[in-house]
């Protein structure tokens, strides 16, 4: 109970440790796993934990966005992984040992530099008293949306010319990103398109029409050959009459 009390008293820290451990731990999972599907699964968990960290830092909207888009995007990776590994054995792609060593050395030194930088600036490592911090409703969705249309609500108090309304927003980047997305959509569709058009796709016809086409061919053949089939088509109501005749 005492532990619980401590954990609650420092709930921000507790959750930070939890999410950070998950994010990094599953990141290691991505790195060390050999199976593509497992890698994707670990990636999902890592990204999900990162979203948790975003929530903790007060960026609710970005956290939800992370879950929805990023994790949803990973879904596609996962599916590709499944598609490519379910049939063929692509798992056996071992990295050469020298690559591992080199990557570890470079990565380790990079991490050292980054950590040094992270803890280097005094302003950044200034401890904050977060004991009373709660996940407040930080009302950021509307300002974010407005900022994307070029209106900065949060900097209204600032007097600088650069942050005047209509000038400090992100309208231009927003439009660029939108166009970018459109281009990417078309480009991806173009790259992954069907390379060889077959008759079926040429024809723009559904399968039903294809079968109809096939049937017509066969009916032609049928007419050529002689099959003794009586097509009366009419109601057979008068069967007894015809027998009488």
């Amino acid at each position, binding site marked *: 109970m005492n532990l619980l009390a*401590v954990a609650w008293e*420092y709930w921000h*820290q507790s959750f*930070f440790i939890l999410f950070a451990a998950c*994010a*990094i731990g599953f*990141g290691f999972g*991505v*790195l060390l796993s050999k199976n*593509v599907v497992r*890698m*994707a699964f670990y*990636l999902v968990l*890592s*990204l999900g934990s*990162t979203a948790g*960290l*975003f929530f903790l*830092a*007060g*960026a609710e*909207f*970005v956290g939800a*966005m*992370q879950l929805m888009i*990023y994790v949803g*995007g990973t879904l596609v*990776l996962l599916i*590709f992984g499944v598609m*490519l590994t379910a049939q063929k054995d*692509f798992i056996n*792609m071992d*990295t050469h040992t020298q690559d*591992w060593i*080199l990557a*570890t050395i*470079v*990565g380790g030194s*990079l*991490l050292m530099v*980054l950590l040094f930088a*992270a803890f280097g*600036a005094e302003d*950044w490592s*200034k*401890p*904050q*008293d*977060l004991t009373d911090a709660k996940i407040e409703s*930080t009302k*950021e969705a509307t300002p974010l949306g407005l900022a994307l249309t070029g209106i900065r609500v*949060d900097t209204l108090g600032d007097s600088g010319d650069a942050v005047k309304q209509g000038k400090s927003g992100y309208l231009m980047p927003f439009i660029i990103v939108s166009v*970018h*997305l459109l281009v*990417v959509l078309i*480009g*991806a569709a173009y*790259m*992954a398109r069907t*390379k060889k058009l077959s008759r079926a796709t040429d024809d723009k016809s559904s399968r039903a029409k294809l079968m109809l086409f096939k049937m017509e061919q066969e009916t032609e053949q049928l007419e050529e050959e002689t099959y003794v089939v009586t097509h009366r088509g009419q109601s057979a109501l008068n069967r007894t009459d015809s027998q009488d005749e």
Partner: protein
Amino acid sequence: MILIGTVSVSWYLAVGASLFVLGAVCMATKRNLLGVLMGVELVLNGANMNFIAFGSKVLRPEGSLGLDGQLIALFVIVLAAAEAAVALAIALNFYNNHNTVDVDRANELNG
């Protein structure tokens, strides 16, 4: 625990740095094209963490980036999605042409 009462921007940056390095190492070592792609996602995510940390009003009451941090993080997420789409299209083409997803086999452009 050293962290008690002392979560600061630095710790977020440390997590971001770890994710970044993990992603970078992943990109360097994986031979599977999809593995490389996942490394890229991790790297972008690690970078995003910095933006969020600097933009957080909870962590930095004074001098936070404010909305700018979150906005840039949003752009990163959106661009990462676009990047994944293109990369997957490339992967698909690569697979169609080479019948493998081993990036070491993609050496046709060697001089």
